[in-house]
Every structure is written in C-alpha cells, then in structure tokens.
C-alpha cells in the first residue's frame, strides 16, 4: 500500500509539470495564475500521499496551510496585482 501511494505521488509530478509548462506558455496573466492554482492543488495531493506513505502527520498540516494560502494568493492577485485593474476595481 505504501509503495502504491508512492507510485501515485510520483505520477502526480506529471500534472505539476504540465502546470509549469502552461505557466511558461500562458498567453496572459489569467492562464499563469490558473497554472499556479493547479500546481498548488497538485502539490497538496502529493503531500497528502506522502503523509500516508511516511506516516508523518505533520505533512497534513503543511498541505492544510498550502491549500489555505492558495485561495489567498489567487484572490489577492485578481483583486490587487492584475494589470489594467483601474477600470475593473470599481466596476461592480
């Protein structure tokens, strides 16, 4: 069971690589922040799998913090750091 979880954790590097590739390609900032979001989810999945593999429950806390910060990061980006926000911030 442990080796199976380790196998899936290694397999999860494929979506992480795809997210990095999209971050490199991404035509606009929306694609890049989305790729960061997917990367965060993938790393959360890897950490959860490794927590069961290595029986270290502290990794669960790490992924908890990571998933909490993923929301804050992207919301802060959309509200504050996206270019051309002057017309958008008081639009609705």
């Amino acid at each position, binding site marked *: 069971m442990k080796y199976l979880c380790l196998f899936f954790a290694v397999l999860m590097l494929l979506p992480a690589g795809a997210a990095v590739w999209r971050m490199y390609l991404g035509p606009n900032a*929306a694609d890049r*922040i989305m790729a960061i979001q997917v990367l965060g989810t993938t790393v959360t*999945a890897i950490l959860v799998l490794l927590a069961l593999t290595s029986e270290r429950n502290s990794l669960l806390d790490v992924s908890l913090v990571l998933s909490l910060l993923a929301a804050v990061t992207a919301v802060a980006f959309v509200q504050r750091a996206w270019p051309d926000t002057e017309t958008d911030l008081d639009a609705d």
Partner: protein
Amino acid sequence: MTPTDWFTAMLLGLGTIFFIAGAVGLIRFPDTYTRLHIATKTDNVGLGLIVFGLAVQSGSWSVAGKLVLIWLLVMLAGASVAYLVANGAISRGIPVWKR
C-alpha cells in the same frame, strides 16, 4: 491486500486519472475559459477522490477530518478563483474561443 486497500487503490487511480486529464486539458485547450474549466475539475474531483481514498485508509477520525478539511479548502479556493479569474478576463476583453 485487504478489500479496504483495493478500494483505496481504485479511488487513488481514479483521482490520478482526473489529475492527468486536467493536465492534458491545461496543455491542449484553446482559450483561457476552457482551461479554467478543466483546472477547476482537477481541484474538485481529482483531489476529492484522492482524499477520500486516503481517508478510508487512515484509521483515525482526526486524520480523516483533516483530509476532508484540506479538500474543502481547495474546493473553496478553486471555485472562488475560477469565478474571479473568469470575471476579470471577460472585463479585460480576453477573447473567447470560437471554432
């Protein structure tokens, strides 16, 4: 392997399939909005299946609760970010893909 292990392996495999489908979609889909759609799919279903498979495996309620909490937080992030990014992209005039 016990039946619980088989169940966990099945759920982990399904979740990994969703993750890999999300990766393929993230590379292949033609515009920002469709990529946003597949990214949210990965967040919700892929991580949900993996978390459910591992929560079955972990013997204690506290670990299972923490896993479900991680999944709920990621779903919250994914849903709100999908809405905010799509809204911002439309208001900035990022073009929608047409065949």
